[in-house]
C-alpha cells in the first residue's frame, strides 16, 4: 500500500509540474508551406526539370519510329514503342566503312578505360604517398613541376605527343592512348592523393616505421586500407574523364581503334542519307550509360567509404 501511495504522489507532482509550464515548450513547430520552403523547393523543381527535360526528350525519341518523329511533337510520349533504333545503334549503324554500330567503339573504350584508370591511379597514389610521407630531396620541386603540368593546355602537347608515340612505335594503338591518358591524369590525381595522404596522421606513419614496415609495407598494409574513399573519388574522376574523352581519342587512334565517343560523333554527324534521330538518341544514351552507371554504383560506395574512413584511429 505504501508503494502505491508513493506512485500516486509522484503522479500528482508531475501533473502539477505540467500545469506550471505554460507558454512555448519543446521543439518549435514548423510550417510545411512557409515562404522559405516554397521558394526552396520551387527553385529545386525548376532546376531539376531544366536538366531532366533533355533526357526525357532523348529517351522518348529513341523509342519512336521515324514516321512518328517526322510529325514533330518532340515532347509527346511515343504512340508505338519500338526498340529497333537501340538495336541499330548498337549493332548495325554505319560509321565510314564499318557497319557494326557502336559495339566496336564500346569495346575499344573499355579496353582504353580500364588499363588507363588502373595504371594512372596506381602510379598517382604511389606518387602522392611518397610526396606526403617520404620527404625525399627535391620533393617540393617535383611536386611543383607536376602541378604546373596541369595548367599547360592540352593543345600545346598534342602534336609533340604524336611524334613521341610514333617514334615509340605505338601511335594509333590502344597502348599509346592508354599511355597518354595515364600521363594526363597524373597532375590532378597526384595532387588528390598527396592531399589525402597528408591528412593521415604522421604518428601512424612513425608507428609503422618503428614496427619495421618499409616503404611498400606501409603503403599496402597501412595506407591503402585507409584510403578507400579517395580511391573511389579518383576512380570516378578517371572513368568519366577517360570514357568521355574525345580529343585524345580522335588524335591518337585510327578508325579501327576509335573509342566510343569518336564513333558516336561519326554516327550522329554522318551527312549521307536520312537523319535517323531515334538511332542518334539511342546511340548517345548508350554512350552516356557507362559514366551514369559509375555515378550511381559508386555514389553509394563513396558515401560508405567516407563513413568508414571518418572514424578516428
Amino acid at each position: 500500500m505504501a508503494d502505491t501511495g508513493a506512485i500516486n504522489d509522484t503522479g500528482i507532482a508531475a501533473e502539477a509540474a505540467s500545469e506550471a509550464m505554460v507558454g512555448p515548450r519543446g521543439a518549435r513547430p514548423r510550417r510545411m508551406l512557409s515562404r522559405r520552403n516554397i521558394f526552396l523547393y520551387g527553385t529545386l523543381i525548376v532546376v531539376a526539370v531544366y536538366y531532366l527535360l533533355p533526357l526525357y526528350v532523348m529517351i522518348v525519341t529513341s523509342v519512336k519510329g521515324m514516321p512518328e518523329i517526322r510529325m514533330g511533337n518532340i515532347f509527346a510520349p511515343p504512340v508505338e514503342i519500338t526498340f529497333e533504333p537501340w538495336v541499330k545503334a548498337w549493332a548495325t549503324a554505319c560509321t565510314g566503312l564499318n557497319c557494326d554500330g557502336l559495339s566496336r567503339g564500346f569495346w575499344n573504350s573499355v579496353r582504353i578505360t580500364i588499363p588507363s584508370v588502373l595504371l594512372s591511379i596506381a602510379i598517382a597514389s604511389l606518387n602522392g604517398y611518397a610526396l606526403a610521407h617520404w620527404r625525399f630531396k627535391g620533393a617540393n620541386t617535383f611536386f611543383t613541376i607536376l602541378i604546373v603540368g596541369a595548367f599547360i593546355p592540352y593543345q600545346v602537347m598534342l602534336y609533340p605527343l604524336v611524334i613521341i608515340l610514333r617514334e615509340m612505335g605505338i601511335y594509333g594503338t590502344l597502348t599509346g592512348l592508354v599511355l597518354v591518358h595515364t600521363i594526363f591524369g597524373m597532375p590532378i590525381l597526384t595532387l588528390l592523393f598527396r592531399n589525402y595522404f597528408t591528412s593521415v596522421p604522421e604518428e601512424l606513419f612513425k608507428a609503422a616505421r618503428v614496427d619495421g614496415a618499409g616503404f611498400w609495407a606501409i603503403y599496402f598494409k597501412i595506407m591503402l586500407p585507409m584510403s578507400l574513399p579517395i580511391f573511389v573519388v579518383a576512380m570516378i574522376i578517371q572513368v568519366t574523364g577517360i570514357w568521355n574523352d574525345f580529343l585524345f581519342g580522335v588524335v591518337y587512334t585510327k578508325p579501327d581503334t576509335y573509342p566510343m565517343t569518336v564513333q558516336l560523333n561519326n554516327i550522329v554527324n554522318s551527312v549521307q542519307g536520312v537523319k535517323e534521330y531515334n538511332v542518334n538518341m539511342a546511340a548517345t544514351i548508350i554512350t552516356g550509360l557507362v559514366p551514369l552507371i559509375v555515378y550511381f554504383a559508386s555514389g553509394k560506395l563513396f558515401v560508405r567509404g567516407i563513413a568508414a574512413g571518418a572514424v578516428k584511429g
Partner: protein
Amino acid sequence: MASVSVKNLDLNFGDVKVLQNLNLDIRQGEFLVLLGSSGCGKSTLLNCIAGLLDITDGQIFINDRNVTWEQPKDRGIGMVFQSYALYPQMTVEGNLSFGLKNAGVPKEEIKKRIERAAALLHIEPLLKRKPAQLSGGQRQRVAIGRALVRDVDVFLFDEPLSNLDAKLRAELRVEIKRLHQQLENTTMIYVTHDQIEAMTLADRIAIMRAGAIQQLADPATIYNRPVNKYVAGFIGSPSINFIDGTLEVNSDPVFRAGETAIELSGYAFSGNGPKPGPVSFGIRPEHIFTDKVAADLPFQCEVEVEVVEPMGADTLVWSRLDGHELRFRVDGQTPVKEGERMKIGFDPARASIFDAETEMRV
C-alpha cells in the same frame, strides 16, 4: 651500464637549430622524463633517439651499440604516441602483431607475446575489436601493448596521456609506473609537458628549454634546488613567488626588498657563497605558513589578502609583499576573506635565490 646515450647531438631544420650539442646518459632500468613547454625540442629529441628523424651531428648509443645510422626497427625500441597511432583497419590483435609479423617472428611466439602483453595491460577482452570501438584509455593501453610485445629494453613515450581526460590520465599514470616496476631493467624515456606526470613517474627529470637541457636531476632536487629561475618557475603549481631585491653580505647574508629584510643564515648558498648584488628571491606558495605555524618560523610578516581562490582541499591566497605578488596556500577549511590581514611566515632555508642577471641559482 648506460642504456641510452646521446652524445653531442645537433639537429637543424634548415637554418633553425632545434637541438644543440645535447648530451644525455640514461641508466639501464631508469625512468627518465623529458619535461618542457611546447616547442622546447623534447619530442624532437625522442624522435632522434627513435631514429624517426635524421640527426645533423652527434651519436646515439642504445645498449652500448652505436645506432646513429640504424632504422627505427633495428634500434631495439618500442614507442607510444600521443594520438595512439593505432592502425584503424586492424583489430587490436592485428595492431599488436603487425611489428612482429614484419620481423618474421614465428606464429606461436607472437601468440605468446600478445597473451603476455594483453594480460599485463588487462586488454584480453578487446583483442578482436577495432580501435574505433575502444575508448581513449583502452586505445592507449593497446598502444602501450604494441610497444610491449616488441620485447625491447627501451620504451619511448611521446606525451602518451595528453589526449586523455584528467581522471583517466591519473589512472594510466599509475599503471605506467606499475608497468615500469614489473618490467625490470626496462628503460623508459617519457616526454611530457605535465609536471605532475614528470614528478610522479620519473627517477630523473630533464627539464628542457630551447633545445638544451636546463637541469637533469631527481624530482626532489629539481623541486627543492632548481638550478635556475626558469626551472624554478616551471616546476610547482601554483608557481613559485619571486621577489626582486638585493643581496647584502655583512656579517650574515640578508635579502632586502624595500622595507622587507630576510635573514639568510639558514640558506645553503651554492658555489663560492653569497655575493652581494641584485637577486630574485623565490619561495614556493606551499612553503609559506600562516598563524600559529608561522610564529615558529625564522621570517614572519603581515600581509593583506587581495584575492581568495578556494580549491577544495586548500585555498590559494593572493597578497602582496612589498609590492610583489605573493601567493600562498592555506587549508581549505580556514575561513579567509578579501581585505583581511594575515600573519605569514616561512623558512628562508627552503627558498631559492637567483642572480638577477644570469638567473642562475646563488
